[in-house]
């Protein structure tokens, strides 16, 4: 009786089982272990690097230069906590930190608007 019911509802049971496992695994990975990369804007000196240009307001009357930083979520969380707004440590990679890199603007990519400086090549510089 129980077996026949199991066979009859094998499809929803299997799906629910795997759905629960997927939810559990996702929770553990992203919330408990914080095992993911984060990407965020960092200050960029347009005299040193090719920077992305961002708008301060909707009309884009004022602009600012920025680059992207990629870091492992757990590392930056340990340094800055939930909010990285006023965290200076978020701007740089820690010594010996793996999975930490910066992304600068690529002027050859038509989609990007880069800060206009001489002989600036787009580069992805891997910090140590």
């Amino acid at each position, binding site marked *: 009786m129980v077996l026949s019911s199991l*066979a009859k509802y094998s499809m929803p049971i299997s*799906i629910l089982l*795997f759905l629960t496992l*997927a939810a559990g695994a996702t929770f553990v990975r992203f919330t408990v272990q914080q095992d993911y990369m984060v990407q965020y804007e960092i200050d960029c000196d347009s005299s040193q690097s090719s920077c992305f240009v961002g708008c301060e307001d909707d009309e884009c009357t004022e602009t600012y230069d920025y680059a992207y930083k990629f870091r492992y979520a757990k590392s930056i969380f340990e340094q800055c906590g939930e909010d990285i707004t006023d965290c200076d440590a978020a701007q740089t990679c820690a010594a010996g930190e793996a999975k930490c890199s910066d992304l600068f603007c690529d002027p050859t990519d038509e989609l990007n608007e880069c800060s206009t400086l001489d002989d600036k090549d787009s580069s992805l510089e891997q910090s140590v």
Partner: protein
Amino acid sequence: MICHYFEETSYLIFASDVPPLLYYSHIPVIAIALIVGLFVFLNEPKLKLNRLLLTISVIFSAWTFINLIAWTNINSQLLLGIWPFFAVFSSLLAIYTIYFVRVFATGKDISGDMKWILTLLVLPVLILASTNLSVSGFNISDCDAFGFEGEIYNLYIMVLGVVAMLWAAYDLIRAYTKATVLRKKQILLMGIGVELFLAMFFFFTYIGSYLANAGHTTDSDIEFYGLFGMAFFMAIMGVLIVKFKSFSVGASASTALILALLILTASQFTYVESRTGLGVTAVTMVLSGILAIVLLRSVRKEISQRKQLEELTGDLGRANTRLKELDKIKSEFVSIASHQLRSPITSIRGYTSMLLEGSFGKFPEKANQALGRIDASAKHMTVAIEDYLNVSRIEAGNMKYELSDFNFKDEMSSVCEDVRPAALKEGLVLLFRSDLKGRAIVNADLNKTVQIAHNLINNSVKYTKKGSITVFMRDDIKQKRIYMDIIDTGVGMSQETLHTIFEKFGRAKDASKTNTAGTGLGLFVALKMAQAMGGTITAHSEGEGKGSRFTLELPLQM
């Protein structure tokens, strides 16, 4: 991690810095999907199709709800926690739509093998949901994970969507070719609803994700338009529910559903603030209103028809009960009266016979003629009483049959011999012919078979003024049946008479002119007896004045 460029959310889904179309495209669509899904399910929870529609509604609502959370929340852990489930719910939506359409098209549940195939299609998505193949990171600046989505994983979801569209189209086209005209309309509507829903949902969500992934857009608000496919799908479901009674939902309940959906659309005026939102809501209200008027008219018409039908059914039921009572009383009366009449008639016939034979001395010629008329009338009366008693027995289920094996041909030949003098007296020729391939042995009640044959042949004699009556025996060894055709050149019957000839008192319109003594019960009794012995009697005539053919059919004993 907090997306510091964006504002805090209140009550999980409310934020001020979101596109104006966000709430309009999400909240009403979730409500419509859940209302229709739950409504259909609660009306007939045991119906597989209803359960599947609810499943689709819940999965779609779950997708839309987490999408709303993704648009309004700024916590990366929460957002990454739900991000893989866009793909999970999309794939579930694809396989359950295939399942739903197959059940709709065939009217039955899918096989166990097909269930496994569908489960296997969705398993990779579930298993890989929490891995880097699904999503590997989060962009705090844009507050999304588009740049970290796995391309192969996304492509697989899109392929599942296309597979669902093709599979559903195949099932519906196959069902369409075999369907009736009314069913074809339902299949066509379902096809338009499902295909448009899948196309809009998968195309817009994938395109939204692709454009954001490729950096062409910072937001994927193009996906909002994909959600309206569900509203359209549910509107089609509404038409199927109201107009075609799909999902076994009642008419009055459908009215409630339409009103609920209208109130829901109208309720958006209370929270939509932008000019675009108000404009779109107003247009939707007008369109929904027109649709509601059409649907409500159809419902009202159906309710009135149903009421009339219920009243008529009630009247018919009462009349039928009364008729049954009267029929029972009549049968009891006929039975009692017939028994009461049989004894005096037997006595009359006995004494008349003795008087005619001269047991009480010789009578003058005129007196003998009178006695002859009394004897003939008493004979007719005996036959009539026997018919009434037979009808009473048949209706009360008291008719007894003593089955035995006998030669049908020999017995029918004897009956012909018995009836021949009466036929000759009327100037008719009675012929007996046979074309039998077997031994003509039947297992039936001999007396009743003879009684049926007498009835049929005597009828032919009575209703044939000149010409002949041919009794023809034939058999069908393969079918194990034997037939006796009684073909006459008599008065014949109209098509109208042929339809009523075997009913109680079902005599032909002018039958009394030819045969005044008939009760209109003989054929009814003969047919019931033949049927009780596994046979039947059929009648055929080209029309009035063109003769007739009665066929007694019985099973052969091999």
